[in-house]
């Protein structure tokens, strides 16, 4: 039933509705304005340099006087590989934690684990980055210098993704598969069968949504990767090679960039918006279908 509509300002419900509408449109507009601003700033680069050169140029030398080059493939590869590695590493760990929290431990322990995951989710990324620099990087450095590498980025980032993926996987397991699991348990199926043959497959779309959400976070992550990835513009030949991600490139060069260089950086930002937006939309779509199935 729809709430009755009255245009009178004395109706508190109507006033609340207007306030909510205003608040919602402000946050919607901000996102839209950011996208428009980035697009506007990126236009000169897209017009004067053009998309083909972003792919075709061999190097990234935006400030060269003689022959500026704007090849972005190495940084695309950097962002892609760091994200892929982190998602691959974090997903099993996160799904196992979610299963543990939902099915295997008493309620009080589950509560504690959930709070811990939320806490991990709230740790600022610069803290993860510094931790990576003083713990992870020296370990890798002792093995394969220079230490600041694709591997360091993957390890640190995967730790940051675990809570994101685990918390959404737990929600999917509870909401999409909770009833099914309880019915199956009531029929006398053992816990292993309930969890792995019924609940996890049933919640797989929701879990997939969580994984994509994690990937979106990984693509956009900046501070931690700047600190631990080494920031060399190259397509890495091994896990031990340093890489520069698109976000790291923007963070390192934006405040020093002028005119054309700045515009190119905005163009890469626009690309990031598109990728993140796509991942978030795909995540939504997956989770919603999962819930309906």
């Amino acid at each position, binding site marked *: 039933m729809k709430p009755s509509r009255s245009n009178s300002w004395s109706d508190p419900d109507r006033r609340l509705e207007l306030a909510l509408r205003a608040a919602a449109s402000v*946050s*919607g507009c*901000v*996102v839209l304005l*950011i996208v428009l*601003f*980035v697009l506007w*700033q990126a236009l000169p680069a897209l017009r004067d340099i053009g998309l083909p050169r972003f792919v075709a140029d061999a*190097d990234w*030398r*935006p*400030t060269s006087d003689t022959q500026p080059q704007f090849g972005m493939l190495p940084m695309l590869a950097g962002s892609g590989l760091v994200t892929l590695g982190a998602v691959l590493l974090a997903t099993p760990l996160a799904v196992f934690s979610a299963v543990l929290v939902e099915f295997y431990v008493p309620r009080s322990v589950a509560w504690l684990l959930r709070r811990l995951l939320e806490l991990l989710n709230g740790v600022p990324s610069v803290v993860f980055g*510094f931790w990576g*620099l*003083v713990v992870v*990087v*020296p370990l890798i*450095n002792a093995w394969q*210098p*220079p*230490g*600041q590498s694709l591997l360091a980025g993957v390890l640190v980032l995967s730790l940051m993704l675990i809570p994101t993926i685990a918390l959404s996987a737990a929600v999917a397991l509870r909401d999409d598969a909770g009833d099914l699991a309880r019915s199956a348990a009531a029929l006398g199926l053992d816990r292993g069968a309930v969890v792995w043959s019924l609940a996890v497959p049933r919640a797989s779309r929701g879990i997939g949504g969580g994984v994509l*959400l994690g990937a*979106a*976070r990984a*693509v*956009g992550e*900046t501070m931690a990767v*700047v*600190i631990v990835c*080494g*920031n*060399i513009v190259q397509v890495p030949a091994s896990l031990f090679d*340093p890489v*520069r991600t698109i*976000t790291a490139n*923007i*963070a*390192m*060069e*934006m*405040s*020093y*960039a*002028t005119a054309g*260089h700045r515009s190119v950086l*905005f163009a890469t*930002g626009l690309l*990031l*918006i598109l990728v*993140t*937006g796509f991942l*978030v*939309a795909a995540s*939504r779509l997956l989770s919603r279908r999962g819930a309906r199935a």
Partner: protein
Amino acid sequence: MAVLCAVAFVVLVSGCGTEDSGRAASRDEAVSEVSATSVETQSVRLSGKLTVTGSSTVAPLAAEIAKRFETEYPEVRIDVQTGGSSRGIADALSGVADLGMASRAMKTDEEGQGLIGHRLAVDGVSIIVNSENSIDGLTKQQVVQLFTGEITNWSDLGGSDAEVVVVNKAEGRATLEVFLNHFELKNEQIQADVVVGDNQHGIKTVAWNPLAIGYVSIGAAQSEADLGTPIRLVPVDGVEPTAANVASGRFEVTRPLLIVSKGEPVGLAAAFLEYAMSPTVHDLIKAQGFETVAQ
């Protein structure tokens, strides 16, 4: 979703943020100039707002000077923003900031556009290694070989048998330009293993990596080393990277720390500049590890 987008692009937004606030400040500029010139005739009572942007090396010093200036003239507010030398020069040129800060010498085309660089102090750029590294001196030639990848193992220089990790600065940084100029290198020649942003990023990277070699501002490096950070400033061709050697001119990898103005400054900007160039602030300059300049 909104939150995620916002997180991903916080960098972009902050990038524009500085510019926007700078623009807002330039509107205030007219006001500040009027009040400053009018009070100048009545002497001593300065008021208004001044925006200073630019080099991350100069900014901490400028902020200290500004703080002292504000205590002497309580009606003045000085806003010091960091953004790199290039931005400092661009902002001074466009009028977005009243004064710019740069940690490198002005280029001729910049001077041609009417910019004046006022030498506030001198800073050196020193080679640094981790304190575990046994190397106690390098020649200019060896530095070039290390950074261009001709020497890739510390044992070639009498150190332990371990790979060299070359730490370079990101494009556009003044320290990078000073380093490249002095060692007659092009950025493309450098075989870097790690690229860092500001001085602190460079110092932390070398402090946590026993194999690393990098270069940073002497002021920043010395104060960190004094605090016990495990880095060592390495003499090149026998010249110790100390403030005293920078002052005497023996240490050659130096750069001027400049306050940049478009034309001769007037009003509040002129008063602040005069204050910053006066011996009153020499203790602040020394405290930052920089050298003063004879006026």
